[in-house]
């Protein structure tokens, strides 16, 4: 574990990313303490410029933009993390079964996966949310459904190559069951690229959620960054701050997640890291 941190630390960008991410997470956790009032509540006069009474100004209904961003962090992170967990779980199951058993099982599962991949993911997500009514659950489900196929393909590839390794054959020979071989022999060795991919998937899930909210398909009871941008797009010329600051929040979070993902990748594949970077 200490080795791992040593290798991670060599990538300076990843350390900065981790710092930013920890900051965003702390803000999300502390949101009800920083701003006990609901972010939907009117705080003062509408259209107040930033750096005045309210640090980031107020929106057209007089709601505090900073409070919206702080509470929005909860929604964005939660949607990102939960949908990624669901997508990774789906992808691992499908990929592991397809890669381990091969043959007809592989063919069937991969054709099923391709069925999902043929539909452009954002359009698919819109359709799903529109059908099931926009609630936080349907949004998380829609994002998970559109983002598991790449995980499945990645896991399948790992399993296909690990399946042929001698230590897996040795496990077959000593009579371990399929389930045990999948879970204890192959999975731990296949996990590192999945972890890296998952960290990047959280970022794309946050973007997807923002895009859905921007189109008005967000959960109407949840203050999210995408909703804030979407709601203020009609006044962007006379109230730039309403959409700019949530936009920066998205940028910083997604950038942090990407940096962390890259750092994890470097730390988990020490031999591939540091090439082409001095």
């Amino acid at each position, binding site marked *: 574990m200490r080795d791992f941190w040593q290798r991670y630390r060599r990538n300076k960008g990843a350390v900065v990313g981790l710092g930013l991410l920890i900051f965003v997470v702390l803000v999300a956790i502390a949101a009800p303490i920083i701003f006990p009032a609901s972010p939907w509540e009117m705080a003062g006069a509408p259209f107040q410029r930033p750096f005045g009474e309210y640090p980031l100004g107020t929106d057209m209904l007089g709601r505090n933009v900073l409070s919206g961003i702080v509470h929005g962090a909860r929604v964005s992170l939660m949607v990102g993390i939960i949908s990624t967990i669901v997508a990774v779980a789906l992808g691992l199951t499908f990929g592991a079964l397809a890669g381990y058993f091969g043959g007809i099982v592989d063919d069937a599962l991969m054709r099923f996966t391709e069925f999902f991949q043929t539909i452009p993911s954002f359009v698919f997500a819109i359709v799903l949310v529109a059908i099931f009514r926009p609630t936080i659950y349907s949004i998380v489900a829609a994002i998970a459904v559109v983002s598991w196929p790449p995980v499945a393909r990645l896991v399948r590839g790992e399993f296909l190559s690990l399946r042929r*390794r*001698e*230590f897996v*054959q*040795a*496990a*077959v*020979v*000593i*009579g*371990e*069951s399929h389930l*045990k071989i999948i879970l*204890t*022999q192959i999975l*731990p*060795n296949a996990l590192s690229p999945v972890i890296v991919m998952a960290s990047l998937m959280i970022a794309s899930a946050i973007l997807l959620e923002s895009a859905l909210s921007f189109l008005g398909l967000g959960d109407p009871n949840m203050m999210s960054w995408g909703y804030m941008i979407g709601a203020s797009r009609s006044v962007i010329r006379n109230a730039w701050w309403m959409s700019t600051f949530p936009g920066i929040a998205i940028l910083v979070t997604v950038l942090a997640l990407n940096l962390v993902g890259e750092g994890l990748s470097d730390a988990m594949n020490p031999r591939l890291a540091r090439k082409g970077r001095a």
Partner: protein
Amino acid sequence: MTEPLLSVRGLTIDLPPGSDRPHAVENIDFDLHANEILCLVGESGSGKSLTAAAVMGLLPQPSVKPSAGELTFEGRNLLSLSEGEWRQLRGRRLGMIFQEPMTALNPVMRVSDQILEVLQAHGEAGGMGRVMELLNAVNLPDPERLRAAYPHHLSGGQRQRVMIAMALALRPTILIADEPTTALDVTTQAQILALIRQLQSERQMGVLFITHDFGVVAEIADKVAVMQHGRIVELGSKHQVLEAPRHEYTKRLIAAVPTLDPPDRRPLDRAPTVLSVKGLGKTYKTAGGLFRPKRIVDAAKNVTLSIRKGETLGLVGESGSGKTTVGRCIIRLIDSDKGRIDFHGVDLNAFKGSALKPYRKRVQMIFQDPFASLNPRHKVGDIIAAGPIAFGTPPADAMKRAQDLLQLVDLDPVVVDRYPHEFSGGQRQRIGIARALALQPELLIADEPVSALDVSVQAQVLDLLADIKRRLNLSMLFITHDLRVAAQVCDRVAVMYQGEIVEQGSTAELFRHPTHPYTRKLLDAIPGKHWRTRAHA
């Protein structure tokens, strides 16, 4: 004595800080004369390949760099050359051939174009005519057809011949060969060694030949330098080093090379038969694509063999002969298409999936690659205990048994808590053996168990296997390509060629009076076969 072509004095090559020793190569001296083959021999990690790389200016700088000494070639110290001067020298004056010809050739370029490129890069005239001449010189069959061939069309031996043609294209005075025959089958190896010998004397070249195999040394060397831990511990003529080694390490290495004289063995005619395989067949089919014809390969055809209690049957053959397929069919890692596999009279081919489980316990396998056969994320104790646990032994008991087994294979039982990467190849192979023994099998299938190991470690592991086999009265199917090992280990030997067993018999009988032409060819091809035969045993 004439002036040496290449003179190495006090060469020291630094390793990056944090390596297991400060210098890869430490203060070595040797001379290479024209018309002479100097063999650098040593075990893995002895620094022999880095020495060759230093002579070619191919060290992975800056992490590994020469820090002292001189490499004098044609009056110049090679260590002070610039990259541009090196380029002039490489290819033109110094040729090199590598171990793995597939990776050294560009897979998407015709081989004739690759040789032509070498000529053009150095502004050499002659064009395609010269390429054909070179292909002829390395005895490639049908050079006209080879003109259009890509590397994957060629066999391993043919690819190595192409590499040699490339290395010789500019008539270098020195040829450096880094384990050029290690990846090749024994019969191909014999041909390539003969070719190098022939070209060397035709062109009066000096050859620096890197190898780990004393058989190859006996076959090809004029002079021998033995390396250990980055130092040359002994340097002398072939005769002196092989017949009257002075240094302890050389003596130990040479003693570890198995002899070709099978020891006398007690007959096992009365012991009961453990395994009897009849008419085993396995065919691999690759489905044809739109533009590809279907490919059908008979990996095993009508294989019939039997093993008695306490007996070791050797299955020998070259790569692609089907010996590994037969081993994996018997242990049911792959399903065979035809035939019976009778284990104590019960046909294992009749079972599938979990019905096989009772037999898993009684037939175990030792794998070839000690680095691939242990899960890098499991502790040694868990690896060994996994089998008994899968069969319902309480984990605590299984772990205690794992410690006993570690002792049995001469490892300290406290290592149960360590991970495989902390062990050397030989130690890992011992762990692999302990894992196979954990289920108390009656039959062991050993698939090239020592071919990935250095010769001195190989001897230890073979001794250990022989000792355990005797103590536990195990039967063993020993799959190997190395006839020296087979001669020492096996009671009987079956020779496989293109999926069929062409000859089978007691080891002593088969080595002394081979009847099948292929067996004779195999025995003839063993490098250094006249060295260390009866007279020395």
